[in-house]
């Protein structure tokens, strides 16, 4: 025969057991959450973004806008061609450059350059930009995203590492002391 006292004693043990499981669960949750958040925390690590060569300067004639590509700095072996990123390079006057992300500032579709009308046009929702990247018409709220650039040893370099989105432009990545 089990008395009610016995039951409450076993009930107490069950509660202790639950508490114990809860503590173990909470302890396990810490590494799991850190694992899940690693895409966010990774940007603090070195090599997340860096100066990337786009090629020799003579690839970008003065007064013209050309497509260039680079390999993203943080890359996995199985990324394949998705780690190759394109950008638009505008050689303003032979000395000054502008490097734009291909991603439309509206929703990230790839904008195309039309040298005849000096416009970037987006195929998705009809956003258009002038040659200096400023907004011309359509749904974008702002101009094209610009990468910081520098010229070194006759090569054009840009500072990049993540896809620019309306919430965060290309140039405000952390640790970019020499930008601007």
């Amino acid at each position, binding site marked *: 025969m089990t008395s009610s006292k016995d039951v409450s004693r076993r009930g107490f043990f069950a509660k202790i057991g639950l508490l114990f499981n809860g503590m173990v669960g909470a302890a396990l949750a810490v590494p799991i959450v850190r694992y899940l958040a690693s895409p966010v925390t990774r940007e603090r690590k070195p090599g997340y973004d860096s100066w990337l060569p786009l090629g020799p300067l003579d690839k970008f004639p003065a007064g013209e806008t050309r497509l260039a590509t680079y390999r993203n700095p943080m890359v*996995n072996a*199985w990324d*394949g061609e998705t780690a*190759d*990123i*394109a950008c638009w390079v505008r050689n303003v006057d032979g000395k000054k450059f502008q490097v734009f992300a291909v991603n439309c500032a509206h929703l990230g579709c790839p904008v195309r350059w039309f040298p005849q009308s000096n416009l970037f046009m987006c195929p998705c929702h*009809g956003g258009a930009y002038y040659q200096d990247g400023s907004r011309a018409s359509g749904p974008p709220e702002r101009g094209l995203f610009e990468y910081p650039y520098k010229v070194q040893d006759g090569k054009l370099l840009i500072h990049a590492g993540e896809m620019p989105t309306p919430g965060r432009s290309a140039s405000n990545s952390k640790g970019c002391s020499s930008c601007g």
Partner: protein
Amino acid sequence: MRLMGQLGEWFDQRLQLGRPIREVMEHPVPRQTASWWYVFGSAALTIFMFQFVTGILLALVYVPSAGEAWSSLQTLNHQITLGWFIRALHGWGSNFMLAIVIIHMVQVFLFGAYKFPRELTWLLGVFLLLFTLGMAFTGQVLRFDQDAYWGLGIGASIASRVPVLGPALVKLLLGGPIIAGATLSRFFALHVFVIPGLLIGFVGLHVLMVLKLGVNEWPMPGRIVRRATYVREYHELTAKEGVPFVPYAIWKDIVFSGFILLSIALCAVMLGPFGPGGQPDPTIIQTAPKPDSFFLWIYALLSYLPPAAETPILLIAPLIGIVVLLVLPFFAGEGEKSWKRRPIAVLVILVAAVSLGTLTHLGQHTPWSPVMDAWSGQPIPAEYLKNRTPLEHEGALVFQSKQCHNCHSLAGEGGQRGPALDRVAVRLTPDQLVRQVIQGGGNMPAYGKNLSPAETTALVKFLETLHPAGQRPAQDASRAIAETDQH
């Protein structure tokens, strides 16, 4: 036969499922619900199981790696015996599933089936709709082509607009700083493990509640649902004119499910698999990404929202929509069930159907997008160029070479981003034309820096010829007076 019976008994002694199964089969349902209107839920369940099987078949070959996924789909399409057919079945199954789930939901809404005591069944159903949409989107990502790649870019751009958390959400969504291998891996995990697991659990509870609470009776105008009396009235109804679920009601479910599976197979054979489109190489920018048909309406909406209102609407409207669906049974848990006495409910469905249909149609035609190759691929019709001066011809050339045609149509050809220009000379005077070209405005870029004065003059001369034969072009009256004064 005796052996079969003994075998059955042996299993039932251990499983003890015989009695509950018999109870489910024999449970009485209101006679009128043995109707063709009540077959959509079971059809959705059938397609779900079908997607499960075809999905596993695809997983035997598919490689969820950003570098390999696209070519493994090519292998499925072209190398493996009937691989294309399995892909087509899964793709068409997805379209049918979404369609049937939505029809089921509309029927449940119009028949008042979400009312007491079936609120929780409806609630789980709302989540099942969201999971089904989630499966459709993640499945579109696994078809790792250009549309999938840029579709993820659109998703990331929307997520990035969330205040404060935006950038972190983008990285959680993509699994890294860019759309790449980690992105595909996590969408694979969502599509194959996470959402199907949730679906199995929620579908199980959803069906269990239909069986426990009984299927919604045929709504009669004037038969009011009251919390105090409903359950008793329902049992009286099933006791009086109920029929056993098997076979009275289920035969229609079975026939309809078979019909749907046959339709999926026919679509798969006749129309083939979906894609994959171009390979997911972000350096190939000659692409016009588009989502699958069930998301086209969102794609269309995104081009019509005014820029300033876009972010709040994008982030808040879906939440409001989901909350409205979730609280519906608590807000309207009693009262009339029949759609004949619920005009607002009918109106809501009609407005929703017309809106979604219109937006989907627009999404297919994308009138807001410039036609990227109109300037080089669509010539100005010959009759617009007959008997014109050399200067006007020069203007027509400017019209083409400066890509005006990409956004403006002539004789129905070209872009629809801006107004058609067939009668523009009637609407705008020469001075207004010059100003519009140089300064832009009204969603048109300014061309002042891109056109020489000679080009602008020629272009406007050409535009001035664009008016119907018998109709005079617009003129500035004050200009005429000024010119007479000069003489």
